[in-house]
Structures are given as C-alpha cells and as structure tokens.
C-alpha cells in the first residue's frame, strides 16, 4: 500500500481538535480528501488550519496533540489508493 505523509508547513504547536473538549478533526481509520482539515497549528497565538494534500485513509498521527512541531515535520500518515 502506498503511503503519504502530510507535512507541517510552519512551526508551532499542533492540535488535533478545534477546541479542548471537542472531537478530533479526524481519527485513525477515517478517510480524508485533499483540503480536509486534519488539525491546527498555533503560531504566536494565531491558529492555522492544516489541510490534507492527498486523499487516503488515516493510518496514524506522527505527532502528539499539543506537541511542538517544526516546518517540514510529518504530521500524519495516510494510506493512499
């Protein structure tokens, strides 16, 4: 099965949920299409949506919720086609 990693475009803190008490944007096993929001990255108190850039099934997240992230760091692994 081919795999695809969604990379983090900017540095900051990664969130899997829109709010602390909300459901995650996507979970392991969900399917996503390009443009779907998979998480948020907070940079200097501004929140930026992170979108999937490929279609596929979410295999696993590669960073923790509220984890520090760097540009280019893989966030989530997708199983494509």
């Amino acid at each position: 099965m081919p795999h695809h990693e969604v990379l983090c475009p900017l540095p900051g803190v990664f969130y899997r949920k829109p709010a602390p008490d909300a459901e995650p944007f996507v979970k392991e096993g969900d399917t996503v299409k390009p443009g779907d929001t998979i998480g948020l990255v907070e940079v200097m108190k501004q929140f930026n949506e992170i979108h999937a850039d490929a279609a596929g099934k979410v295999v696993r997240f590669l960073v923790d919720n509220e984890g520090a992230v760097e540009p280019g760091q893989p966030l989530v692994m997708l199983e494509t086609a």
Partner: protein
Amino acid sequence: MLKRLLVANRGEIAIRVIRAARELGLETVAVHSEADRDSLHVRMADVVVPIGPPPASKSYLKPDAIIQAAIDSGAHAVHPGYGFLSENAAFAEAVEKAGLVFVGPTPESIRIMGNKALARETAAKAGVPTVPGSDGVVGTIDEAVTVAAQIGFPVLIKASAGGGGRGIRVAGDADELRKQMSVAQAEAQSAFGDKSVYLERFIRRARHVEVQVLGDGRDVVHCFERECSLQRRRQKVLEEAPSPALSPATRERLCESAVRLAQSVSYRSAGTLEYLYDSDSGEFFFIEMNTRIQVEHPITEMITGIDLVHEMIRIAQGQPLRLKQSDIAIRGAAIECRINAEDPEKNFMPSPGRVSEIILPGGPGVRVDTMLYPGCAVPPYYDSLLAKLVVHAEDRVTAIARMRRALRELHVEGVKTTRALHLMLMDEPRFGAAQFDTNSLEGWLAAPSS
C-alpha cells in the same frame, strides 16, 4: 523583607520585572521553557529554573511547576507579569498557600474583578457607569421599545446565544427597533437555536481609555489614563498617554471613578480599569478590570515618573502607598509602539525565527523594553511582541516626531516586524489630529491615506 523574587513569565516583561527587583536590591529567579533556554531573561537572572517543554500549556501555564521552582530556588515571592497565570485566582491562592508572597492583588480581587458580570455589578454599586443595557432578555417588541428609550438610542440587539460579534443588529430609533426586533429574533433562532435577544447601547465611535491605579489594600491612587484605541483584531497596536480625547474635567471624573471602584474592593497592587469613551456624547463606561501590570504600563511611567513595578514590589512587601494623589501629575506626552514579529505586507502573518542583526534606537526621551539580542531565537510558541518602543516628550506633536525618528533608527534582521505599520501611523493625518476610535486602524489599513 523579600529577598528573592521569582518571575513567572518570559520575554520583555520578565526582563522588566528583573530590572525593577534588582534596583530594589532583590535577587531574581527566572523560569523558562525548553524553547527559552537562551532567552535574555534567563541570562539576566541570578538563578534559573527550567520548567518544561516549549508549549506554554506545559511550562509557563503550569502552576505546580512554577511554585515548585519557587520553593526549590528559595524564592520568597512570585511576580506573574502579564498574560499566562497573572489573572488566575487559583494560582495566586496556591502561591500564598505555599507560604510565598504573590506580587499582585488578593485572589479574591482577581476573582471578583476578573469576572465580567461581577465586575459590572461591583461598578454599579460603586456608582461607576457601565454600558447601559437591558437587564437580561427582552421578550416582546413593546418591551424592547420601552427598555431602549431608557438605554438611549442607538441600541444593539444582541443574540443571547451569540458571541464574537455574531448575531448583532443596530437600531437607530424606535421605528427601526420595531422592524429589527423580529428579524433579530428569527435570525437568533435559526443561527443559535435560541431566539432570545437583549439590548445594549451602541457606541458608534468608541475609544478605549483605561485608568492605571495603585492600591495598598486600604488607599488607592490613580496614575491617570492611557488611550488604547488603535487596535487590530481587538489587539492593541499603539498606546499613548494622556488620552488626547479627554477634557480636563472628563479626565478628573474618569480617574476619580476608577479610584472609587478600586477602593470599593480594597484593591491591592497595580491594576487597570478599562472604559469605553463615547466620542459623540462624551460619556464613559466601565467595561472590565485587569488585575495585573499591563503591556503598555511604560507610557504611564514616562508621564508620571512613577516606576509601577517598583511600587508593586513595595506594596507586596507590605509597605503602605508612598504616593498621595496630589503627588501625581502628568508631564508631557508618551507613545508606545508594539513592535511585533508579524509581516504587515502578508496580512500580519506571524514571523518567528532568529534575529541576525538588531539596532535599537536611543537618544533623548526613548525607552525600549525588549528581550532581543543579536542571534536570539524568536520561538513560535508565544505571543509575537518583540519590543516596546516608547517615547516621551513635552507634548504630543513632539512625541510623534520623536517616535518617527526612533522608528527610523530601529533595524531588525531575521524576522519580519511591524515597524513599517508604525511609521505609516506617524504620518497618518488622522492619528496626528487624534481623530480615531477602536474601528479606525482597520479602516486605515484597508484604505491608507497617501
């Protein structure tokens, strides 16, 4: 006597507090996240304690880690700065329970004044005006018209379940209110699943004016006001003192009301009472209190000659206020420009990174509060404030000229800054004429005058 002070913060405000503590002969303890290991506040402090990973939720927002750091480092007191845990009543309480002094108000004051509804009630009891509104939901159109007549037009019709500016309509008179009410209720029902609405006076041209106070738990004095109307996305961009909008008589009534309100809760430490000032009617309304030192405190220090952080520490040591109201006067005018790590050309996108080169302005009447040094990191985890450029001069016109020249001296390489925005403001005729309100800056950014 307090001998060792822990500063529960980072960036420029941590440095500001370390400087004040040192001037009063106290030793200082810095705490830091992993991202701030090489920060200037860490380099400056006498004792350094790491408190956790980069995200603030895992370091600067962890009460237990900070209190443990205070105990381990032998600190006697904790200064919270602004933001982070500064207005967290439970933290202030935990600090006191650990046998340490909290350099700030009592947990009780934080709790009361930090709650918008309670603060509004407290203001009303102290005879301080708040924005007139209906007491709760207005059910029928006739009721709305009666209530609106008492509040005064224009009024806002706000959805009880709304928020963040959503679900709001304006009515200029009773006829408009009759038409708008049913629409507003229907909209509220479909948008929020709850048709209840309430009314509030609409202030078309509101200025944000705030009063600095100092209290020792018995007496309260004010240190006059700051004008903070120039905002972008509800974030202050530039502040000045005194407010160019107030007449001497209004200033006196405003500042006196702030003292009355702070006195009514036996306020201790430095605090700021925020008001909306109606440019059209000349009325002012209390909106909320910040029970901590504020970012823009230096402009007050410049025009009054009072070191507010010194006073906070002295009060925390149990000393009575050293200042009488008659000792405090305004001298000249001061302006603060917030230099943020944001790119004004890319819709103020945050710009973390590493500072490769920096030249700070100096000369007469210039003060820069910053944590920047050549080679320092600007981490993405915290707010974007890099430096506060503050000027003082004998009058507002001279202060603007001084700020323009100081901004031209400022040079930062490696991260984008909002310097260009401030240079634009110094040449903006409507800023020069002091003709602005809380909505103006976003309008100027959309359509700059050339």
